[in-house]
């Protein structure tokens, strides 16, 4: 029986040869993940269900990243609960301040996620790990708390939408633009309950960082998971970081898909998603005059080293507009350090931006850059819902690191090409 990569991973974890869409299965999980928002509830469930020992102390991962460094007393109390639990259960993979990064950037970087793995996380952007050819999906704290105890959970096998990307990407077009374009095409519930399989020649040449960005936003089309087939790039990424090898699965050529869509990347411009839904994507040429107050470069979507390099490339030798607050958030301590070594932080500070410690921070309106009523931000984050970055009367526009950096200089949303040419130093 021909199967998709998603079906094969689910089959392998439920002791079956095949699974089919709609089938209910119980599956072993390779990892459970929780953060400072969702862990307190999951821990409560764990104890209430009679738990006293997690199923595997290496596989129950916790990262306090949302409101950390503790933004207020309530946030501090939530993190304390996690710390106590991590100590009591002797969790190997509890990453506290200093080691802490944004969970979905941190775990792949630490080599904790591998091709063929099955991962559930009490965070909707857990689908990020699909970039490595893993099945990863977000669940609520109750489902997570139960799996922390048993190492298992149940799933309904999703149907798959195959997305085929062809053609050469235009200058300054990145994975972020492709996924915003795709969400604009599918709609925010266009892949509801389904798997999004990203493939085609343009995906083969796409760097890992961009693949993470695309898989990360599968949830914004309502998907259960987003997934790439592992290739040489995946294996090179994994080899550098993990002693485990993982397991490579490929979709069979005859596998059944709910739908197949093709995109010609050579026709896709940099995209900007207008408030208040990620599906409101427009090409940069059609944005018109949108003045902004703040620009944010970071998050589990676009806070990786490659993203910071692009932002620095745009910002080098330039200054952000007087009216703009530019906030840059390297997603992990390693990224922070690398960015420092490469002189990127220097470029950001000289341009008039600030650099924050790793945190989800403003992406979900937590801290580190909250918007006032009527203010507008352009951000490399993943959601532009009402009130997402602060006051319900504020607005968020989603874009790539290149467009966000360029907009910070322009003071309005605009393309890199609109920036004045730099004078050459004599």
């Amino acid at each position, binding site marked *: 029986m021909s199967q998709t990569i998603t079906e094969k991973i689910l089959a392998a974890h439920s002791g079956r040869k095949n699974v089919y869409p709609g089938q209910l299965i119980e599956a072993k999980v390779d990892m459970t993940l929780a953060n400072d*928002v*969702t862990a*307190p*509830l999951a821990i*409560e*469930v764990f104890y*209430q*269900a*009679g738990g006293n020992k997690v199923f595997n102390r290496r596989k129950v991962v916790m990262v306090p990243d*949302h*409101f950390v460094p503790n*933004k*207020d007393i*309530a*946030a501090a*109390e*939530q993190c304390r609960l996690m710390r106590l639990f991590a100590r009591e259960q002797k969790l190997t993979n509890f990453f506290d301040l200093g080691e802490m990064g944004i969970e979905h950037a941190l775990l792949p970087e630490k080599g904790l996620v591998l091709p063929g793995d099955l991962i559930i*996380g*009490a*965070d*909707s952007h*857990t689908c990020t790990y699909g970039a490595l050819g893993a099945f990863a999906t*977000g*669940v*609520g*704290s*109750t*489902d997570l*708390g*139960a799996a922390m105890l048993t190492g298992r959970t149940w799933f309904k096998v999703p149907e798959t939408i195959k997305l085929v990307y062809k053609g050469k990407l235009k200058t300054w077009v990145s994975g972020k633009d492709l996924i915003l374009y795709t969400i604009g095409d599918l709609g*925010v*519930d266009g892949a*509801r*309950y389904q798997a999004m399989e990203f493939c085609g020649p343009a995906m083969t040449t796409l760097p890992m960082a961009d693949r993470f960005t695309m898989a990360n936003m599968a*949830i914004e089309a*309502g998907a*259960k998971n987003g997934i790439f087939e592992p290739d040489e790039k995946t294996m090179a990424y994994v080899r550098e970081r993990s002693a485990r090898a993982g397991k490579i699965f490929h979709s069979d050529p005859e596998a059944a898909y709910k739908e197949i869509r093709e995109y010609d990347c050579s026709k896709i411009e940099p995209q900007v998603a207008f408030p208040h*839904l990620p599906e409101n994507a427009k090409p940069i040429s059609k944005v018109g005059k949108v003045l902004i107050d703040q620009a944010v470069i970071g998050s589990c979507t676009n806070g990786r080293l490659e993203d910071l390099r692009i932002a620095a490339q745009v910002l080098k030798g330039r200054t952000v507009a007087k009216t703009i607050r530019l906030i840059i958030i390297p997603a992990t301590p390693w990224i922070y350090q690398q960015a420092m070594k490469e002189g990127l932080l220097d470029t950001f500070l000289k341009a008039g931006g600030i650099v924050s410690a790793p945190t989800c921070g403003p992406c*979900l*309106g*937590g801290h580190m850059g*909250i918007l006032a009523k009527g203010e507008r931000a352009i951000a490399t984050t993943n*959601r532009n*819902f*009402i*009130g*997402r970055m*602060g006051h*319900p009367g504020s607005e968020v526009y989603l874009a790539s690191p290149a467009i966000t950096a360029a907009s910070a200089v322009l003071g309005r949303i605009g393309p890199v090409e609109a920036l004045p040419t730099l004078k050459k130093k004599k």
Partner: protein
Amino acid sequence: MKFSGRVWKFGDHVDTDVIIPARYLTTSDPKELGRHCMEDADPDFIKKVKPGDIIVAGRNFGSGSSREHAPIAIKAAGISCVIAESYARIFYRNAFNMGLPIFESAEAAAQINQGDQLLVEADTGNIEDRTQKKRFKAEPIPAFMQELIKDGGLVAHLKKGQV
């Protein structure tokens, strides 16, 4: 189980940030979460809503984050059940796990108006709009799921089973 109450109508894609804004996620206390339910869509919602009232919404209700705080906040605000054209995947599962009854009906979601009086029956999935004198049909909630809801969610239900 039967639910009767007045309708609070919302549109498509009501996301979890609208249901309970992330700025309040530094607690898991239902009372505190309930106090801010739907605040960014309607700041006075919590002042106007009465115990037993029903939320009716369009497509993809509960999209966005995996936070269980969303169904917790809706329940704590006094809402007896939610009717929508469709639900986001994680929210759907979280709602039952938290003991919040939810129903799917495109017709009901389209035709029911703000302020209508409804009577909803879990056993049959019948939705009666007493204001408009119309009837709609949703998938019934099976008996074991109703038990789970009555107990207050999955964990409370499991605990009861153990005793």
